[in-house]
């Protein structure tokens, strides 16, 4: 049963409005205008090769298994469910006295972080170690690229060390895909956040957290609140929620923090927090970056809290059993009141715990391993 007010999109599938390439739109017909003055030749007209743009192919191998994990977009629903199911099994590992399984023994995982990160990098590191992989952490923002080395060159150097997997965080949208197209066939890439584009493991750990509390995705109303424009987390969450069949996904924020054309992603857009979270089962609060609190986007953190900050009073507008999520790190008193962040409806710390199991699941699937039985 739906707890939500407001319209429910009749088509919850995630169909892009147009084909993903226009490059073949202008194929020459067999008999073109240029040829009218000349007798026709019997030869067949040249066909343009298929588009170079194969967005999803690179993520899946020929058997449809996950080879890289770059974006949730356009992945099949079964695959997302498989990630969640595998993660469910890996949570057991984390609760044992000996928190290790030998699934990735002898494999080398390189955490390639071009942007600072604490929790994402740490949970990826823990996940890899619990799979018995050897882990190397490279904070590139502080090293090679500062010396003018290109991304392609950094990559070649690291590949020469016989790495099996790169976990990549980069400030440029599309960087992990760029890397995935460069690496050798037996090397995998996992996106740990690229620009404003995608953060697929964060989205999956959020889906995992939601499923633990609200198993029926097809009855949910989810509200994502805050700086959608700069958020890779929000984008990946929207894709994941739509693929998993959530009928109502709302985004809430001021127009300066909402990118254009959001409706094309199958979400409803709200500018009023009270209206946007009314009846919602899940509220995902996004972090507001410090540098955006006082800028041409927003007048102040104080005013933002007044208009979009989640307080206990406002939370009462959501469903009675609504859960509150946040990808962290949280800004208390900016996007969220401490009473909410630390309150009974908050699942923010569970998200962190689940992050390890979900990343173990993704890594093991990508490495072609199998999750342990239940």
């Amino acid at each position, binding site marked *: 049963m739906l707890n939500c007010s407001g319209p429910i999109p009749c088509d919850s599938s995630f169909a892009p409005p147009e084909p993903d390439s226009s490059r073949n739109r202008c*194929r020459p017909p067999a008999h073109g205008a*240029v040829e009218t003055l000349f007798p026709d030749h019997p030869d067949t007209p040249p066909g343009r090769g298929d588009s170079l743009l194969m967005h999803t192919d690179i993520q899946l191998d020929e058997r449809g298994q996950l080879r890289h994990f770059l974006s949730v977009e356009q992945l099949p629903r079964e695959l997302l469910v498989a990630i969640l199911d595998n993660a469910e099994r890996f949570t057991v590992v984390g609760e044992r006295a000996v928190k290790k399984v030998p699934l990735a023994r002898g494999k080398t995982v390189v955490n390639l972080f071009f942007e600072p990160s604490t929790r994402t990098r740490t949970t990826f590191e823990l996940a890899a170690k619990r799979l018995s992989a050897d882990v190397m952490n490279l904070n590139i923002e502080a090293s090679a690229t500062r010396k003018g080395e290109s991304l392609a060159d950094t990559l070649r150097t690291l590949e020469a060390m016989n790495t099996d997997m790169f976990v990549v965080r980069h400030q440029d949208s599309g960087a992990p895909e760029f890397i995935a197209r460069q690496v050798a066939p037996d090397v995998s890439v996992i996106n740990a956040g690229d620009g404003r584009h995608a953060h697929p493991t964060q989205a999956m750990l959020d889906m995992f957290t939601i499923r633990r509390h609200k198993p029926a995705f097809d009855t949910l109303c989810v509200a994502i609140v805050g700086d959608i424009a700069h958020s890779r987390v929000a984008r990946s969450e929207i894709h994941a929620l739509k693929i998993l069949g959530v009928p109502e996904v709302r985004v809430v924020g001021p127009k300066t923090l909402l990118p254009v054309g959001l409706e094309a992603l199958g979400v409803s857009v709200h500018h009023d927090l009270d209206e946007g979270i009314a009846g919602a089962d899940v509220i995902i609060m996004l972090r507001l970056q410090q540098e955006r609190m006082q800028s041409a986007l927003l007048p102040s953190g104080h005013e933002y809290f007044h208009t979009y900050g989640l307080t206990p009073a406002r939370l009462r507008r959501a469903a009675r059993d609504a859960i509150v999520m946040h990808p962290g790190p949280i800004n208390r008193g900016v996007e969220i009141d401490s009473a909410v962040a630390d309150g009974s409806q908050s699942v923010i710390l569970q998200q962190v715990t689940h992050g390890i199991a979900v990343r173990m699941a993704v890594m093991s699937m990508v490495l072609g391993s199998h999750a342990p039985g239940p």
Partner: protein
Amino acid sequence: MKIRLRGGRLIDPATGTDTIADLWIDGDRIAAVGRKPAGFGAPARDIDARERVVCPGFIEIGARLREPGAEHKASIASELVAAAAGGFTTVCCTPDTSPVIDTPAVVELINQRARGVRGARVRALGALTHGLGGEVLAEMHALKAIGCVGVTNAGRAIRDTNVLKNALAYASTLGLTVFLDAEDPWLGAQGVMHEGARSTRTGLPGIPGAAELIGLARDLVLVAETGARAHFRTLSCAGSVKYIRDARKAGLAVSADVGIAHLHLTDADVAAHDAACHVRPPLRATRDRDALRRALARGHLDMLSAHHEPHDADAKAAPFAASAPGISGLDSFLPLMLELVDAGAIDLGRAIAACALAPARLLDLDSGTLAVGAVADVTVFDPRHDWTLDATSMRSRGHNSPFFGQRLRGRVTQTLVGGRLVHDLDA
């Protein structure tokens, strides 16, 4: 040298010609169309143009030739040879070189590098402001005297409206055409692709269409104010067409072109963060592309440009936003143009007018036509020649093309520059 181009389909928009006939060339001029002129004698060269189209040579009105300053990407010689192979007989180069073309010495250097090259001619566009800095006017009189066919700030925004107004007024005083890139410097300052649902999807910073419209509107007001002759380079938005039409109706001396890639590709092609599709102005929505096609077909936009920007491989071997914008456009220009003709988007005569006659008039060149007495800048192409754009076939040093690896139809077989055969595929 006396040359006959035998039995080709002659298309000359200037004279309204579209017929199968011989073309006779004597020295650097066109001697006759159809029957051999009296006293011509035996041609030293008899070129079989049957089943081919013979038309005035194409003129590229704003290519980046990368020399001086970025010779690792391309050189004047390499690109002029590529231009000739692509059917271009004249290439205007932009002044954003290093050093900038803001002194006669740099123009002389370019002319010297072009000397002896078996390829297209080069004509320099001079800087509009000193060092393209947008603050101090360039020595436009000296640049005109050394042969610059126009002045431009080559995509570097002039933020100070007063400087732009004065630059336009000064260029107008000297009778120089100003080439403008319409883009508001603030909107989409960090942007790398068209702002819309697709930039939201890709997470790439967007450049809204408003950036072009506001830039265009501002520039047009100043053009009206100063009476300057202005040409807008590579417009990308549907909405820009109306601004240009209205300006023309108001009597302003304004023209505009569109890049060939912008008539084929859209922001959908950026969906996979394909750096080959990173270009400025950005590839926009399907409705923009379609509106630009119609505007070119109807003459509301005057010219078609290759918008040639060659790059080395490293410049594109990076994530989309970190890659350098630009498409190497000379080699694929003709087949892409013919594809539009075959798709019924534009008439062949109109297309040839847009890349030969119209730019010749803008630049005051005595080419761009096959009329008797005109300079013999002539392109011959086989509209049915199938070929693949690849490392072997591409003449430009820059292989940065979204069409790289694709089958194309239509190829230039001969190019004559001033009556000299500089490209001959049959040889």
